[in-house]
């Protein structure tokens, strides 16, 4: 057996190289964001415009899905609780589930699909039609104007959307509980707030910040590095969603460990 690498070895070696090169590029991209975010010029107007795009324009979708999540989760939980005669615990159970996990996760996944793909596609198409180059030659830093603004906007807006989703999901849960258990609005929300703690809300907000950052930076990274014309734009949008969703689940897992650590203190 000779020591010469076979074609298969070369393919594997190339894939490993590509993986680590991609990892280094992503690291450089994130590093550049943290370097550029602190220094002027600050594109406040563009950040506000992006906040509007990401936040306000996502409201209809988030409202609908949040409400449905509340209704469905309540309906699915009722049989198990009623077996123990504990349907009165529904508001507490739902509030914990929604605030700790479902609200942030549902919002982040929907935003990854809607916001992440649109950022990836928009920046990707700007890249392939030389609009980013045009910005650069007109002495404007495209990274600052396109990337920093979008990442900041998504980092700020996802926690706001999460709070809104929590509220709408609890409203959906209330509608379901009200018609089945005849619980009043005030009783429902007293039970909801009794069940959740300061740590629940804080951890939910902190992880939402990370989710927002992830959605923004992944969308921008994929768009900014897209190649091969319109095909590349489609790929950038698609991989922005897939990668952001994957990272969101990893972050959810990590945040659970960190929150549990604080809960035990």
């Amino acid at each position, binding site marked *: 057996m000779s020591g010469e690498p076979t074609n298969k070895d070369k393919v594997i070696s190339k894939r490993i190289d590509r993986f680590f090169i991609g990892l280094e590029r992503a690291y450089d991209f994130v590093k550049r964001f943290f370097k550029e975010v602190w220094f002027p010029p600050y594109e406040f107007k563009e950040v506000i415009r992006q906040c509007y795009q990401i936040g306000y324009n996502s409201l209809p979708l988030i409202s609908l899905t949040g409400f449905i999540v509340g209704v469905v989760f309540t309906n699915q939980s009722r049989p198990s609780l009623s077996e123990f005669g504990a349907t009165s615990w529904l508001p507490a159970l739902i509030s914990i589930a929604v605030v700790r996990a479902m609200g942030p996760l549902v919002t982040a996944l929907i935003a990854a699909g809607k916001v992440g793909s649109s950022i990836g596609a*928009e920046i990707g*198409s700007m890249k392939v039609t*030389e*609009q980013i180059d*045009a*910005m*650069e*030659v*007109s002495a*404007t830093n495209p990274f600052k104007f396109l990337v920093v603004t979008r990442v900041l906007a998504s980092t700020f807006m996802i926690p706001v959307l999460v709070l809104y989703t929590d509220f709408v999901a609890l409203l959906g849960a209330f509608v379901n509980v009200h018609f089945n258990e005849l619980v009043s609005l005030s009783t429902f929300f007293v039970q909801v707030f009794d069940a959740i703690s300061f740590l629940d809300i804080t951890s939910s907000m902190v992880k939402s910040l990370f989710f927002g950052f992830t959605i923004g930076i992944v969308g921008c990274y994929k768009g900014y590095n897209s190649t091969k014309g319109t095909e590349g734009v489609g790929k950038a949008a698609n991989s922005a969603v897939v990668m952001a969703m994957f990272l969101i689940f990893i972050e959810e897992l990590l945040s659970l460990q960190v929150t549990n650590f604080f809960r035990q203190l």
Partner: protein
Amino acid sequence: MRESVVQVRNLIKSFGDLHVLKGVDLDLYRGENLVVLGKSGSGKSVLIKIMVGLLTQDEGSVKVLGKEVKDLNSRKLNELRLKIGFSFQASALYDSMTVRENLEFPLVRNVKNLSKEEKDKKVEEVLDSVGLLQTINQMPSELSGGQRKRIGIARTLILKPEIMLYDEPTAGLDPITCMDINNLINQVNEMYKTTSIIITHDLTCAKVTGDRMAVLLDGVFGATGKFEEVFEYAEDGRVKSFYDYNFIKQ
């Protein structure tokens, strides 16, 4: 002696195994229109992208207005870029902005303390100079190819550049619109006293707009001079075939 505003010496640029520029030398003199011709993929666009720092050369020197481009830090490079107008092949208008916002974009970022009236006046003035004042509130998607090219040129003119770089200004346009763009290039040269490099493979555009031709062949300039010198009496078969293809011989 004529002042050279762009000096390129032994410029080498490769993309992986593809050697695009293999030792290009070039001088661009103040006030002239230099046309760079060559086949697709011959490195014409690469050459002007290196001049504005969008790409970096592997070897060689590129001096624009006396400054070595690759040695400039980002602040100095941006200062230099303000003196260079770059008209992109596909116009590169910002899709999400109106024509007015497209033109204001470089202005508000690079000219401080400009009142709204001054800003509007500059935008209207430059749009008028390309004959498209009526499109001021339209979106790029509502414009024709020729109009997009003109707006693209107007956007570069708003900062009153000394050097204009046109990347395939007539690509994808009908012959009548091509002629309009060619005339606009000459008009810009006169009105704004610019020095230009026009990248093209359209010999009509070259003949109408160029004072001097330079033909890129296999990564170096194979022929330079006036249009007639380069093409009509060409001895190099590659240059000759280029001419024959553009002006179909009977």
